[in-house]
């Protein structure tokens, strides 16, 4: 009989899920075991994480299980964040910048939906470096700030205007029928937008 490496599978799933975490239901679904069994696996793995020299552990937050770094290592994370290597923009900031550049005007919540993680700090960084700025307020409740790129952004990247940004690739470029359909939808969209 083949021995299934439950712990390995579970860890890989939790890792890839990141901050979004996984519900018991999702875990039992993927492992194809009932929830009781899934719960046992989680407990076992959690215990192993806690009792070993592992850097992460499992927490149960807001209905989902997720991996987090152990509290005792916080000083090192702090050191990482403050290390001089941070002189260039972090990937988080670059991702955020790209989203703003291509989807502006856009609210923080919308950015976070795309990134799947909290984005307060990258936005703050980008604003303080004048690469993006508040360009207005969204309609509706909350009236969240809308962000857009700045003139400094264009200058920094040597762009005359925002249209000079390289266009994003259409989904699957090797499928020509897909592209025709996209063209159709673009045309259609134009007429709908009239």
């Amino acid at each position, binding site marked *: 009989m083949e021995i299934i490496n439950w712990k390995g599978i579970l860890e890989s799933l939790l890792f890839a*899920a*990141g*901050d979004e975490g996984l519900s018991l239901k999702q875990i039992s679904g993927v492992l194809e075991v009932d929830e009781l069994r899934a719960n046992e696996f989680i407990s076992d793995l959690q215990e192993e994480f806690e009792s070993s020299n592992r850097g992460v552990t499992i927490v149960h937050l807001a209905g989902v299980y997720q991996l987090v770094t152990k509290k005792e290592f916080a000083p090192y994370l702090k050191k990482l964040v403050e290390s001089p290597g941070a002189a*260039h923009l972090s990937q988080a900031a670059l991702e955020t910048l790209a*989203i703003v*550049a291509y989807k502006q005007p856009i609210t923080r919540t919308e950015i976070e939906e795309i990134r799947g*993680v909290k984005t307060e*700090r990258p936005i703050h960084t980008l604003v303080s470096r004048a690469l993006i700025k508040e360009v207005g307020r969204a309609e509706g409740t909350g009236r969240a700030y809308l962000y857009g790129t700045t003139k*400094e952004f264009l200058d920094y990247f040597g762009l005359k205007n925002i249209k000079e940004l390289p266009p994003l690739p259409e989904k699957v470029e090797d499928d020509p029928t897909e592209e025709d359909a996209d063209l159709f*939808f673009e045309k259609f969209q134009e007429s709908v937008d009239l």
Partner: protein
Amino acid sequence: MQYNVKFDAFEGPLDLLLHLINRLEIDIYDIPVANITEQYLLYIHTMKDLQLDVASEYLVMAATLLAIKSKMLLPKQEEDQFDESFDFESEEDDPRNELVERLIEYKKYKEAATDLRTMEEERGLMYTKPPSDLSDYSREAALDLGNMDISLYDMLGAFQKLLRRKKLQRPVSTKISRQEISIEKRMAEILELLGRFNHRKSFYELFPVPEKEHIVVTFLAILELMKRKEISIDQESNFAEIFVSSKGAELLGNH
């Protein structure tokens, strides 16, 4: 249709030639030009017969093949006859040389592309996670733009990473929350909407959500409603605005 799709099996005339060489089990360094030209032209003619668009590069290659073929038919020049290095020189002058070199060069990269494909697949088996939000640990270090060494490509690269990651990461639950609307439901919505607007509305106004799925579902819903004769469509003239009316409109005498 089938042929249209299959035509893409070749990346160009060089790719097609490599295929013919392989299939006819020909030595790439000693190509029987007459034979391969015949095969090549047969291919091109069939493409045309099938009314496929033959890219100009294929025609240029056909001309090249014909030119090589005719050069090879020319009698050897007299002066070469008593030259000791006849063989060497004739190899140097082989009209096929340039083509062979091109084929070999192209083939190298075609094979390298196959390697890349394998690497792409292997890499696709590894899943990552986005960087954690470490804002709790940081105090803002103010840096001016001059200190940064980033380019547009760094930004694009980060974005691609994000796109790749997201594709791999959207948990099952999102699937449920993003469930698409059914055609039935959209049909009911359209009828309800028409009812509210005097039973008549511009066709385009029935597409309020700029999402592909929604547009498709709406379009199908309209077709289905037409089939069931629950709505009708009118347009005063070509290119004029299209209107959709529900039954109530006729009853009320509304256009």
